[in-house]
Each structure stands twice: as C-alpha cells, then as structure tokens.
C-alpha cells in the first residue's frame, strides 16, 4: 500500500479512536494502542522508516514525525479537556448537602479526663490507677478514718466481703497506695471509678468518677495547694472566674480546704443552679493528714503534701449538656 495512504488511514483510525476515548476517558489505553514500544500502531509505522529508500526517507520522515507529534498532542489536549469537562460536570452540585463521613467518638468523660491529664502532665504529674475492689485498710484506715468514726457516714460503702473488702468509695484509696508504694517526691493525678451504696436517680448513680491529685515533697505548703487549684480551675472554667477558699473537714487531710467558684448563672446573687449559695462547690482538698503520711511510711516531719479530689460526672454533664447521669453510662446516649 502506498505509504501516504497508510499514514492517512492511521490518522483516520486515530481520529475515530480519539472520539471514542473522549467519551470513556481511557487516554492511557489510547496512548498504548498507538505508541506502545512493541505493538503501537504509530510506533510500528515509525519503525519502518529505516527500511525506506533515501528519497522516501526524505519525503516521509517529516510526515511520520508530524503524525507522531500531532497524535501525541491530540491525546494530551483531549486528556486535559476531558479532565476539565469531568470537573465541571453539571452533576457536581457543590450546594447539595451530603451525609457527613463517619468517625468514632470518645466518651465525654474520656475527653474531660484527657484535658485534665494534659494540664497536669505539663506541671509534672504522673497518672496513677489502682484497684477498684479494695481493702478497708487502704480505703479508710490509712486515710485516718478509724472504725466507727462518725465521718464514715460521709460515704455509704458497698461491701464485697464484710468487714474488710469493699468497692472503693473514693479515689483516695489510690492515694494511700501511691503514698505507701512510692518515695517522695510524688506528683500524681488519679482519675477513676468509685462506688457508693446509693439508689440511682437523675444525679446519683451507684458508680461514678472522681479525679484526685496528690503532691508530696519537702516544703509543700497550702500556698502551693491554692496555686495549683487556682491554676487548674482557671484552666477548667476560664480565667475570669472568681474563686473562694474555705475551711472544710475531710478525715484524710488537716488543714482541710474547700474550693468554690462563683456561680456563673447568677454572678453570686443566688439562683437555683447554685442552690441560692451564690457559689458552686467544685472540689475538696487539704494538706495530707499527719497520720496518713505516717501510716503510709512517709515521715510527716520531713515531708508535707496536699491532695484534692473532685467528682467528674457533674462537670461532664454540664459541659456536654447531659441532664441525667444514668444516660452518661450506657443508659440512653448515642453518638451521631
């Protein structure tokens, strides 16, 4: 066949193929069909050039090259055009909303604990955890609460085996374990579950969560306690909150200290939220009791320390707008 005819035929065929390809977008395949090293139609044509006579070479060399260049450029351009067309597909309606992609969510309590842990890690605290089934020794005695002490009434205990084995009533049991098993300096926070013998209702559940902190070192004073709590509460609420520190009794500390923040709903004038106190009690604290340090094997004449503890559940409920504690723990809360 005449060489020019073949060139025309290939060109014609290519144009047809290009037309089809514009519809299906498979430009890579089209490229391979014409330019694959072993079997490309245009490649095979070009391979014939050395076999031609010198006169034909002069004549068809530029034709072949022209064909190759035209086809390559046509593919390239069509490809770009195709991409533009795809992106500007009228089916793409950026104003139509779609269902959001799904991801997992951490429990609100976990989120709050993490925030607090992050804060305290910055100040050099470790995170500690321990048993939930505890002994009376670690839950009460080492915390300066002898048998039949009136203050036992502050907590209704769930017993596993009376009189010695119980479900911890507070995270202070972790404190007594930490103090017993470690030498000062000590700086830990302990988030964890605690249990009380209470009937479940909107705001009480037989299990809930506390967050406790313990510091023991030489030269630790109430000034450090106040500073730690002040910094922490500013972090937790905001820097503008008003705080109040007052004496409060807890068996495991002396002097004991309660910390309140001014009610943000009524700015201190008294409302339902703060039970007309003007202030909201946020945590209990104090200098670790002389007897507690002694019973845990730390010399209270050499070391001093402080501890504080707070309930987490109400804080989490307020933060996430959950009205009932039972919902927080498996009883009617789902994530979208």
């Amino acid at each position, binding site marked *: 066949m005449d060489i020019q005819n073949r060139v025309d035929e290939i060109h014609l065929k290519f144009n047809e193929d290009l037309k089809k390809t514009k519809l299906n977008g498979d430009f890579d395949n089209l490229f391979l069909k014409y330019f694959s090293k072993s079997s490309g139609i245009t490649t095979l044509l070009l391979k014939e050039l050395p076999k031609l006579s010198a006169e034909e070479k002069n004549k068809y060399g530029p034709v072949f090259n022209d064909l190759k260049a035209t086809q390559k450029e046509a593919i390239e351009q069509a490809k770009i055009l195709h991409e533009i067309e795809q992106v500007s597909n009228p089916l793409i309606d950026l104003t139509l909303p779609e269902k959001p992609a799904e*991801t997992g969510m951490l429990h609100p309590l976990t989120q709050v604990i993490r925030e607090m842990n992050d804060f305290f890690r910055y100040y050099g605290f470790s995170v500690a955890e321990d048993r939930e089934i505890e002994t009376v020794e670690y839950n009460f005695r080492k915390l300066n609460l002898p048998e039949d002490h009136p203050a036992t009434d502050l907590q209704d205990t769930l017993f596993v085996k009376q009189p010695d084995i119980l*479900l911890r009533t507070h995270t202070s049991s972790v404190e007594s374990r930490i103090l017993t098993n470690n030498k000062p300096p000590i700086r830990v926070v302990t988030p964890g579950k605690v249990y009380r013998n209470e009937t479940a209702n909107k705001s009480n559940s037989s299990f809930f969560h506390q967050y406790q902190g313990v510091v023991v070192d030489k030269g630790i004073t109430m000034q450090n306690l106040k500073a730690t709590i002040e910094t922490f509460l500013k972090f937790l609420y905001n820097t503008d909150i008003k705080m109040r520190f007052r004496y409060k009794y807890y068996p495991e500390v002396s002097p004991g200290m309660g910390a309140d923040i001014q009610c943000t709903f009524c700015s201190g004038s008294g409302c339902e939220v703060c039970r007309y106190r003007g202030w909201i009690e946020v945590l209990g604290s104090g200098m670790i009791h002389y007897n507690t340090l002694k019973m845990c094997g730390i010399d209270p004449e050499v070391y001093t320390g402080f501890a504080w503890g707070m309930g987490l559940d109400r804080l989490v409920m307020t933060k996430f707008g959950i009205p009932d504690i039972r919902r927080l723990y498996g009883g*009617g809360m789902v994530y979208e």
Partner: protein
Amino acid sequence: MKIPLIWLKDYIEINKTPKEIAASFTSLGLMLDKPIENGVLDLEHRMDRADWLSITGCARDLAAFENAKFKFPKVHKEKGKEPTKESSVEIKVECPDLVNRFNTRVFRNIQVQESPEWLKERLEAYGIPSINNIVDITNFVMVELGQPMHAQDTDKMEKPEIVIRRAKNDEIVKTLLGEEVKLDPDVFVLTQNDKATVIGGIVGGESTGVDLKTKNIVLDAGNYNQTSVRRNSRKLKIQNETVLRYDKYLNTELTQIAIERAVELILELAGGEYYENFDYYPKKKHIKPMTLRHKRIKVLSGMEIEPPKVRKILELLEYKILDEDKKGLTVEIPHFRTDVEVEDDLVADVLRINNYEKIPVTLISAAPPKEITKPVYKYEEKLRDVCAGLGLHEHITDPLVAKNDNDKKQVVLENSQSSEKNSLRYSVYQTLTPVIEMYRKQNIKKCGLFEIGKTFELNGKGENIENYLETRVLEVVYFEEGMSPYNTSLNIKRVLGRLLKDMGIQNYYFQVNIADNKTGKSSQSGNNDNNYENKSLIKQEELVLGELKYDSFTIFTQEMLKAETVNTRIKHDITASIFEDISLVVKVGSIIGETIKAIKDLNSSITEVYVIDEYQDKKLGENKKGVTLRIEIATDKSGAASVKEKILEVIEKNPDIEIRT
C-alpha cells in the same frame, strides 16, 4: 445543723445580714447547705465536730472569726439540796463498758406547764415541736450545748432506781413515738424494776414520760460508748436528734455543764426544789496537753502568723494556754473539741479563724519528680485513639450487674440496695451490648462500640484481697442490621486486624475454642453469653492477647503490652509486590493460624498473608471449607524467587489442609 438566727444571737452580738453570717460560717467550715428560710441557716455538718451540733459551739467559732463577743449561757453552779431518802433515785450500771458517765439530778414539786414564748419560738424554729416546759428544756439544752438529756417522772417509777444493763434477747421497749422495738444484748437499756424504759443513747420510752401532771422528776445526762450507739441505732434504723449527737465523740465533762444549764432553766420555768443525786462517773477522761510550734504553722501554710495573734485565736476558741515560749505554745484542748487529734488540727484552727483567703498563692517551685504513669495507661489511651480512628464509638457502662447464679467466680456484693446491681461484671460484653439497643432505637443501622474497663472475678476465698482479680480489657462490639453473623464476623476481623496492625502487632493468630488455663483467661467466658461455643483466642506465640467472637472481641490490654511489636506502619522502601493466591481445603475448626504464621516467618520477602475468600461447598466434603489465601511477595527481596515452593511445603505440613491449586 440548723441555726435559727434569733437563737444564735443569744450568744453573740453581731450586726450582719443572714447572708453575711452564712458566708462567715461557710468560711469557717460550716457551709450553707440550703437557702436561708425564715431566719434559719441550714449548715452542712461534716460529721467531725460534735460541738458544731450545738448552737453555742457554732456561735463560739463565729465570734472568734468575727472578733465579736461570745456569751456563754447562764448555768446554775450551786449544788442542790443533799439527797433525802424521799428524793433519791439510785443509779446502778451493770454494763460499765457501755456507760462512761451517768449524771443525774432530782427535782420535786415542779410545775409542768406550757413553755414560755421565747423557748417555744427557738425550738420550733429549729424544728422540734414544743411539748411542755420540762421536755422542752431537755431539748433546748441538747441543741444549745450538744448534750442529749432526758427527764423521767419518778412517780411513774415502780422503784426509786434506774438500772442500766444490756437488753435481753427479744426484750421490747415502747418508744415515745408509740413504736415497739425489739432488742438484743448488744443494746443497753435504762430499766425500772427490770422493765426497759429507755433504749440507751437512742430513744426514750413512754412509760415514765413527763406530762402536765408530773410533780417530781429525775433528770439525766449520759455519756455512752459511741460505737455502741452508732452501731445499734443503725441496726434498729432509728435516727433522731439524740442519736445524731451520741454517735459523735462527746466528752464526759459536757454532761455536768448541760445539767447545770438545765437546772438553771428548770428552776426558772418550773420552780420546785432540786436535789443532788448520783453521778456515775467511774473514770475521768484525761485530755493530754498539746504543743503547737510556730514552725509548724509556717511548714503547712508557708506563712508566719505573729505569736500574739496565734495565742489570741487559740484563746478565743477556749484553748487554755499552759505554757508559751519562743518556739510555740502548749495548750489544754477544751473538752468539747473531741475532734482535735494532732498538732496540725491546731494549725487548721489558727488558719481558719485567720481566714484562708489570707494565705498567699505560690506555685510549686521544685522540679517535677520522675514519671510513674503505668505503661498500660498510656497504651490504653493509644487504643482509644485507634478505636476512634476505626469509627468505633466509646461508651462507659456500669460495672454493677445482676448476680448470675451459674457463675461461681462472680464477685457478689453483700449489701447492695438493688438486685439489679448486686454483682460486678465478668465481661464488658455483657454491659456494652445493651448500648447497641440505644442505637437501634435511634434508627442507626450499624454501629461499632468500644469500652476500656475492668472485669472482675473471685478466684479463691473471699477474705483475701489477692483473690479478687481485676482484668483490664478493651471490648469491641459490632452491629449491622440485616447482616449475617458470618459477614459480621468478617467485619469484626477486619476491625481487629487493623487495630492490631496499628498497635504494631504482627504474627498473631487465632486458636479456636481452646481455653488457655495457664493464663487463667478462660474464665472471661461469661457463661450466659449467647455465642459461648464459637470463640477463638487471639494469640501471638503462646501469649493470649484476647478473645474473638463473631460480633465482638476482647483485648487484654496488660497482655498486649507483653506482645512483640514493630514500631511503624511507614514503608520507606517502596517496591513492587506480586500476589500469590493459593486455594485450600481446610477442616472446619482446625488451627490454620499457626500455618499462616509459619508462612510469614519464611523470609522477609513475604509482607502480608490474608484470606481473600472463604466458602463452603458440598463438593469439598463434609466439615470442610474452601479458603483462598493471598500472599504478598516483595519481588526485590532475597528469597522471593523460590518462595512459592517453600510456602507449599509449609502448608503441606498441616494435615488439616489440602492444597487445591
């Protein structure tokens, strides 16, 4: 503790508003508990200070705090008439271990009548109804001074004596409220001619009660064994103003002051003659002096308080200064401060009256100590992130569950109020799966949930704490509406595979239905779980990492820490891989996990081995299934060329597997 302001102002001159007074009480340690109503402050009592169950006790602290004058009420110090045969009521105590003091006086020819207005007003504001002047005086003195008192009509007594003894088994007392209470020898009673008239320290009986016809009375103020009153009142389920005070630590001295105060009021309001009577007081309680070092105030508060100020505060709180030098003071603790245990309690008193607000704020300056966070805590935090990344939602469920009679190892509570929550969970599966129901109710058609928490079991005798095992687990459950258990199992395995890979764990395998007794993890079973039979252990070598069920898996986080891990998922040498698919016929229930592990171990050119197809077909034979494995081989690694033959050799070693292709 309820404080009617009108009553409070009998002992302290103060011109502040109720709100300001409440604020001062709150600073002192008596936080306002309820809104102020009708001039009554309701203050939270923290169970420590017995004297804070008296209005004078609260007033004394407030006066010290406000620098106001504290006026102690008028008491009758003069002794009564010498007892006569006619007046005398003999006191016999047969249980000296339970009675520390029993202080009595006798009044004759008194006039029982309605109380005057001021007395009624105060009692009613506190919440005690007025009965008659004598009963009201005993109640008034109890609230005023914190010492419960009791008056009996001696003419109603069959014999002029009160015998205090342990109750007999099933002995019955009819209380003032008309209720019959059955007793036992743990309880002590005041008796009349061997008939119990009063449950000691708990509640009075009706038989010798004072009424308008009463002329002659015996008045008592007792001090009893606190533990006994506390335990017995709880056992008898009796709570009242008397018990409230007797289950705190009261000092025996208080009985005398209360008697002197009551005498003053009885003579004023009921007239008559008053006689000395028995004061059973075998052993006077000695209060040890205590030293307060100025240094200690500085050690605890970081600040110095001038010695004269320290002295003044202690004196205002009625500590008697026995000695004073540069270093500090030695004091006698007032009898009503039974809460003071250690020197630091004196420091607390000084700082409290000085006002906590005056303590400066100083951040800790010392360098932080070595970190002691347990690795498992950090590990679980990472697990949480991985789970959330896998689209799983975290929930926290109540570890308290109903008792399962089939489970002998379950930890059961002895005193739970609810039969639905009288035990601890043995698996998180049992408390987490019900949450799926919440999602279904919300019309959410698929969900994967996880919880990181503890499971509990008792392995041995219940007296030993070491026998209570707490296992930390990650539980993952998966649900998709309309999906078959088989397809659910594939999903759960994909989630598990991704999780293990993200945690850097390779070379794990599954072992069907073989309980691993060595680690004791077999008891994780949960006997009432539906798919108990179809369960597989997740293992690496001999280590049990967890358990897999078709719709859930459990990971033992402590065990995961022991597993061999590779650090990263990041590949640096990007090379072409080829896939080698091998079809197998496998006996159902056999352990092919170990064979897969052996393939992976062949050489470094094998990067992944996983199942791409799993099917059942009659042609394969009974109890057999087809499994297609895909093996990814990195072509540039040494050994890649001859690896296929070696793979086949490994597979042939397992008698439970035939190679199809």
